[in-house]
């Protein structure tokens, strides 16, 4: 099962390398990793999606916590949370395909960001599964390029990941 681990980490050079290095050194999987500063410029927030049995996930969170730069972390997939990923798709849009893709974009509540006589760039946000579904529906043949941000997430309600 996928776990979404949100991490508050000191915004120091090398902090990202420490996290990435930990995963490669210990043979853990990273499905996706996003990182950006928070409202407090001394802190970055990372969202890391990983897989593994409960023992491995336990070790991953312990090892991450052990990194000196890590201030706090939480496995948000263990509580009610909201997760989102942003995707941009450059799709081939010719003849009847143009209408079809526009319709699909509407169904998936996406936006068309760029239009040329032969292509569209579509923006979609949502859970990973929704993005996967969109790609499946559009079909491999029509897809020129895909870029995804990786999952980010936040806990619902009062609880949160704050210092």
């Amino acid at each position, binding site marked *: 099962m996928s776990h979404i681990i949100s991490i508050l980490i000191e915004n120091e050079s090398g902090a990202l390398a420490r996290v990435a290095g930990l995963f490669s050194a210990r043979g853990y999987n990273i499905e996706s990793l996003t990182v950006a500063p928070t409202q407090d410029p001394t802190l970055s927030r990372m969202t890391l999606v990983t897989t593994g049995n409960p*023992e491995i996930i336990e070790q991953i969170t312990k090892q991450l916590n052990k990194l000196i730069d890590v201030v706090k972390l939480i496995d948000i997939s263990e509580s009610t949370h909201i997760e989102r990923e942003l995707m941009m798709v450059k799709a081939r849009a010719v003849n009847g395909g143009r209408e079809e893709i526009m319709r699909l974009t509407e169904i998936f509540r996406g936006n068309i960001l760029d239009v040329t006589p032969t292509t569209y760039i579509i923006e979609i946000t949502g859970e990973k599964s929704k993005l996967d579904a969109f790609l499946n529906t559009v079909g491999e043949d029509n897809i020129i390029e895909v870029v995804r941000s990786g999952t980010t997430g936040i806990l619902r309600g009062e609880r949160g990941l704050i210092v």
Partner: protein
Amino acid sequence: MELSGGEILVQCLIDEGVEYIFGYPGGAVLHIYDALFKQDKVKHILVRHEQGATHAADGYARSSGKPGVVLVTSGPGATNAVTGIATAYMDSIPMVILSGQVPMAVIGSDAFQEADISGITRPCVKHNFLVKDVTKLASTIKKAFYLATTGRPGPVLVDIPKNLTDPRVKVPYEYPKTMTLRSYNPHVKGHRWQMKKAVDCLLEAKRPMIYTGGGIILGEASAELTELTRLLGYPITNTLMGLGAYPGTDKQFVGMLGMHGTYEANMAMHECDVLFAAGARFDDRITGIIAEFCPHAKIIHIDIDPSSISKNVRVDIPVVGELKPVLTEMIELVKSSDRKPDPVALTNWWKQIDGWRSLDSLGFDRDADVIKPQYVVEQLWEMTHGDAYITSDVGQHQMFAAQFYKFDKPRRWINSGGLGTMGFGMPAAIGTKLAFPDADVYCITGEASIQMCIQELATARQYRTAIKLVNLNNGYMGMVRQWQEFSYGSRYSQTYLEALPDFVKLAESYGHLGLRIDKKADVRPALEEAQRQKDRTIFLDFHIDPTENVYPMIEAGKAHNDMRLAPGVNPDAELA
């Protein structure tokens, strides 16, 4: 006070109370060396290879409990130090490594002697820093010492670009008295409820076993461990790193456990119903095959590092905390409990253990004409009344030292367990001797290992650190040869050491004493000669039985109750 970066570094060391710094100069640290030159509070020990600096600082740290400090130049100086940093990391040894770096303006340009040492060491340090601002130098050094010595100790590297130490640039200096980091709060006190559960479980045991490791020594908790163990009357075993944490000559001590542990320690591990683990990390050299590890036991585990708990073996009652306060509290809980250890069960358990013990799994041919390595170590132990500092290298000689020198005190046994670094022993002995100038410091080594840092004979000479080298010379990389004998049909691929130097002449050429010992009758007199030498380093080259193996042995993929015993030792004869 306004100081340059180089002066700040030196002043930080003085304010931190650093006695010795082990190092080797070079371009990127010239300003620092110049600042060192102008004072005499911090003594610099010039090694002959940066690996030697790290091992010497490590030996100093292991014996004294104080952090070891290393200073190396950029590029090759820093990369040479990596093996010693990794060695300290694996055994959780407090160390601060200061490395010079190329000036900030050229970082990233493949400048002369540039190496990304923070990148290179990231996986083998507790933490590292690249300092970019001279006004942050003092606080960074304080952080480095704070991190290295608290929680689970470990090496911390501080990389310092050369321009930061420029003597012309002076900034106000103040060394922080204390340090806190919002992202680092090592656990100290154990969870009361967990400790209660642990004590209840311990007191209910019918076949209890105490298994402790290096954490007891690192956490200065020997006295508490000894008190608790005696209070309970339970058998205790130590890992290789834990030897000396509990008196090795005490009858409750059943010897080391693991791959080359005693029969009784490993059998008791296999049969116990409650395992009390403290400051040990369930290394694969002690667990054997995990699926068959302590199959009947409920496991209690105390460790300061949550990631040590349930990493390799699932633990039933974890306690995260510093051993000294946790054991102190547990002693109180045991004393105030209405439960007492079950005397009948305990008597039966000890009977069983004594049966295993009667097998004498460490027995060796005491009547042999040739010099047996075990004999040399046993004689050394007798002669020094078990009170010397013993460092070692890696191989069979290390295991013989661990098995036959019965350490009664912590910090007397200094060896590389986790990384298993050949070359560790002699520089570590130098560091130990500097920490305890009046103590007898022996390095038990092998002819292969000693050659990995042999150049440090010069350091021993320069600083008159009178150490005693006991070379158990079997002409082989014995430990590897043993595996080849057992598992590769005695095909001794590349483990025979041809072209060995004449160690006596070698030692003499460095200005030391050397003795070659070929006859058993000369073993004790040679050791006594070494013991008499208080001012000079002496190299004893013992030519020992080249075929001797270390027993017992749990081979790869085997369980604790599946040991390979010395020829002639028959487990079926036990209790007979």
